[in-house]
């Protein structure tokens, strides 16, 4: 434990360290770099001496801070999830970082994080922290562990379909530019030979070659990232026989991350199918849970994986027919709105081109690309129309929408704590409305897009009986 802080401190301050080394060289005085290193290691050690945590009957408390004292305490009955994160160094030393999740969105210093807990103490700590019910219950009833999903190497085939690789390349290029290496490179010998070669091959060929290189690199990078982050993923459900239980997610090859979710806080799940992943029969699964942020990695249950796996897991968490059941369509008006929205921009473009063609000669490629845009927009509209649908059944609200990022939100009706019916001017004229179900979980508001206006309140009433009692909520 004493080792981790100084080493991470040094790694985090690496740019500063390099700076001090450069400074040391340029001034001819190596004491600069030694001094910086000593300061950092000293700070890391001091952090270890000043950080303590304690757990008493109803509070979890952490004190820390070298120069500025910080005490963070949270009531134990507010603890909703527990996640651990072990980087390579932590794992070598048998340590983990424990992150305690409560309802509110905390970032940075206010996040409750216990760094470098011994891994063998972890199971005990998790049992203590997540048991707001009397912890004796788990001793009597045999704990049933059920594996819901296990990572397969075939899941890797979905990872090149995301843009993570491209994003990583862009970030790397950005960093290189920042350091000014490009400026130095531009008038180097290597760049000149490269340019000469490019001229020999012709511009088109070299651009194509560059594109191929970028694509291959992005594929390799995203596959590698996916392998390292999600390799060894295991999702298990642990029931203690009383209906309560936890979902346990563990993943990562080098940096092992574990999340433990309390099933009583689960309010549903979102099946997400980005266009490309969907075309290859894949889907990813997010949990909708109170106290866990809806976006990003925090709520992730399954990374892109075969659709059947994701559906099976979500079905076991929700109920039969919720995930795969037929949805109620939103009708012709909603479809017409999808088409209008998709085609307004291409139509405006085409009109603009037509207007322009009276003044100047419009090249053929402009017309061709305009036509291509129209076709793409039409396909998009058709796909979005096909996606629209909702279903209220057996205590679950299901809403599906979107094409590029299609999502099917399955929300427990008991977790819905408010309804909004929103109509823009155009929606009022078309007689449709957007219904927003407010929950305390996930992304907070789940939208049912373009429901026929006369149906909107009956959908809400079917999901939450208290809406039906309100006379205001009946008027369309």
């Amino acid at each position: 434990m004493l080792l981790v802080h100084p080493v991470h401190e040094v790694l985090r301050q690496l740019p500063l360290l390099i700076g001090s080394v450069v400074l040391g060289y340029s001034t001819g005085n190596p004491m600069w770099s030694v001094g910086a290193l000593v300061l950092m290691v000293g700070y890391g050690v001091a952090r270890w001496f000043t950080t303590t945590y304690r757990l008493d009957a109803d509070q979890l408390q952490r004190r820390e801070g070298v120069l500025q004292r910080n005490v963070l305490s949270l009531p134990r009955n507010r603890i909703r999830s527990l996640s651990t994160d072990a980087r390579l160094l932590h794992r070598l030393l048998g340590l983990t970082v424990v992150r305690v999740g409560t309802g509110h969105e905390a970032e940075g210093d206010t996040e409750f994080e216990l760094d470098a807990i011994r891994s063998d103490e972890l199971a005990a700590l998790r049992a203590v922290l997540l048991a707001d019910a009397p912890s004796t219950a788990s001793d009597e009833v045999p704990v049933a562990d059920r594996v819901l999903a296990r990572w397969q190497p075939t899941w890797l085939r979905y990872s090149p379909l995301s843009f993570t690789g491209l994003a990583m390349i862009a970030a790397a290029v950005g960093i290189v530019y920042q350091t000014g290496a490009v400026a130095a490179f531009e008038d180097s010998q290597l760049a000149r030979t490269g340019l000469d070669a490019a001229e020999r091959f012709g511009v088109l060929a070299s651009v194509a070659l560059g594109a191929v290189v970028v694509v291959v690199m992005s594929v390799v990078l995203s596959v590698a990232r996916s392998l390292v982050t999600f390799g060894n993923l295991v999702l298990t459900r642990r029931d203690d026989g009383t209906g309560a239980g936890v979902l346990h997610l563990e993943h990562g090859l080098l940096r092992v991350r574990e999340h433990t979710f309390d099933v009583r806080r689960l309010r549903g799940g979102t099946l997400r199918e980005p266009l490309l992943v969907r075309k290859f029969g894949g889907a990813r699964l997010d949990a909708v849970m109170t106290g866990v942020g809806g976006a990003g990695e925090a709520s992730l249950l399954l990374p892109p994986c075969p659709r059947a796996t994701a559906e099976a897991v979500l079905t076991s968490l929700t109920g039969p027919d919720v995930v795969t059941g037929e949805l109620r369509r939103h009708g012709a008006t909603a479809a017409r709105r999808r088409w209008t929205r998709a085609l307004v921009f291409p139509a405006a473009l085409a009109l603009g081109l037509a207007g322009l063609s009276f003044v100047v000669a419009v090249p053929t490629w402009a017309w061709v690309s305009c036509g291509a845009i129209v076709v793409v927009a039409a396909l998009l509209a058709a796909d979005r129309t096909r996606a629209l649908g909702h279903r209220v059944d057996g205590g679950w609200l299901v809403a599906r929408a979107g094409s590029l990022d299609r999502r099917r939100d399955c929300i427990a009706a008991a977790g819905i704590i408010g309804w909004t019916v929103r109509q823009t001017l155009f929606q009022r004229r078309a007689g449709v409305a957007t219904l927003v179900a407010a929950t305390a979980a996930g992304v907070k508001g789940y939208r049912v897009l373009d429901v026929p206006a006369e149906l909107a309140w009956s959908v809400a009433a079917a999901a939450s009986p208290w809406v039906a009692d309100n006379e205001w909520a009946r008027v369309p």
Partner: protein
Amino acid sequence: MWAVGAAIPWTVLAAAQVVWLSLDARLPVLHVAAAIATAFGVVLFVFVVPFWRYRVHRWEIGAQAVYTRTGWLTQERRIAPISRVQTVDTQRGPLDRLFGLANVTVTTASSAGAVRIIALDADVADRIAAQLTDIASIGELDAT
């Protein structure tokens, strides 16, 4: 209240135009266009939109739920069950105080579910805030 609230920024805009005219009197066409746009904005936002908003605006606190209807171009109806109310805030801005009004915001555990009732008479606002707080304090569990 809405009319006065809208009038203030438009007055500032009109004043800014006068200043611009006095500093730089070239391009009269541009000035005329800007003046017409401002006049149109004033008519729309000070004389039309407030009445439109007033006609749409409704609220009710029933035995089970809080209900509001707001907006003009985009209209929104929002309903939240009283049993899930978490906090009740009352705010009064300078304009609200001038007219003796108050806004009541009823929040639930969801950031997408807060119900905001604007421009209530101050004593009505105080009364419903007290009433809702009473109900919320006897609510069960943690209302998520």
